């Protein structure tokens, strides 16, 4: 018999031992895996449903433990995973506010913003495709921006990590990955490749096991694709840690 007193969200943890009744005396804590995807964008930037498809693909891989990076291991039956569409920084804060977040992944538009001089400015997550207050996560400071300090650091576990799948998330002088790492004090991973991104249906490319080829550029995902990955255009997809 396992210990009693564990709630539904904290089921008793069964351990392998010499006898059939060996149990731990502690309830395992449910951890939260949060996957968010931003607005599709407008005009030539319109990604349609592809950010959502990439987020759903990632959800399946996290649950199956098949994403070949050092992401936290998902424990079926204990941990919880949710995929959420967001249009503002407040929308991003909402699913994080559940607490005990061990993993946060973002699929959507991102990149440098206009700088003070002629050089590119601080990086941003362009979450919403409307020019509206709170639609960008960046330190830049216009009426449309909210800083990373809006994200409550105390909702993340100390062993948590963030992974950004947008364009140029870890590229440039003040990338958005750096801004988030400074605020959250946890590992933030983002592509350090320069240039924009493409969607691929090849898991080898999606997992960073090879570099982008011309055929990848010339062949966008077919209409009936169900598994897609968002990767940078230049070289092999490379995550930098911030």
């Amino acid at each position, binding site marked *: 018999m396992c210990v009693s007193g564990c709630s539904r969200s904290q089921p008793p943890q069964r351990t392998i031992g010499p006898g059939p009744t060996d149990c731990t005396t502690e309830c395992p804590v449910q951890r939260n895996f949060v996957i968010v995807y931003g607005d599709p964008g407008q*005009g030539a*930037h319109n990604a349609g449903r592809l950010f959502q498809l990439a987020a759903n693909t990632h959800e399946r891989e996290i649950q199956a433990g098949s994403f070949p990076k050092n992401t936290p291991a998902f424990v079926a039956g204990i941990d919880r995973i949710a995929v959420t569409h967001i249009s503002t920084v407040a929308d991003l804060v909402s699913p994080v506010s559940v607490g005990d977040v061990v993993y946060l992944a973002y699929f959507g538009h991102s990149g*440098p913003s206009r700088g003070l001089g*002629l*050089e*590119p400015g601080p990086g941003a997550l362009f979450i919403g495709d409307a*020019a509206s207050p709170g639609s960008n996560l960046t330190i830049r400071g216009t009426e449309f921006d909210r800083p990373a300090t809006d994200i409550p650091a105390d909702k993340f576990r100390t062993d948590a990590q963030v992974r950004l799948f947008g364009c140029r998330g870890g590229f440039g002088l003040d990338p958005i990955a750096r801004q988030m790492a400074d605020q959250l004090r946890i590992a933030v991973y983002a592509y350090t490749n320069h240039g924009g991104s493409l969607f691929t249906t090849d898991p080898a490319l999606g997992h960073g096991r090879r570099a982008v080829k011309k055929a990848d550029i010339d062949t*966008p995902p077919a209409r009936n694709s169900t598994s897609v990955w968002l990767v940078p255009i230049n070289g092999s997809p490379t995550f930098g840690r911030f």
Partner: protein
Amino acid sequence: MLGVFGAWLITAHLDRWQSLASGIEPPSPTPEQVQGIVNNIYLIQGLPQKNGEQQWDVHAYKISQLGKLAAPMLIEKLTDESPSQVFELFSYTIGDVALALLTDIYRAPDWPSPDGSIQMRKNFGDFRDYVEFIRSKGTRKQIQQSWKIYSQTH
């Protein structure tokens, strides 16, 4: 927060404010200067990820700051199918970059033709529709014609 935004505003418009303060309008660029700036379109490495955002690439920013002065040259480049350095979900030609800059400058009510006179088929509901559309024969010429007419009245 306001301080950062204020600093950005001041720096971004410093030249113009200095000119206004001295009572002297900044001189308009000569046609040769306009041509020189717009011809650097091939050096642009990226475009804003969202409509309404200012250009972050220095060459794109300089072209967009020319405003409608850049329009005739940009419209001429709409049919240029040579490759650019821009890749944002798909590989942009120079003509695609020119269209993005015209759209940025005019903030036209429709896209890719500014007056909505040319409609794309929506097979995907995303950028793939544009890629299919713009690669079809004669489309770039049609887009160019609609921009010529629009720019004469706006």
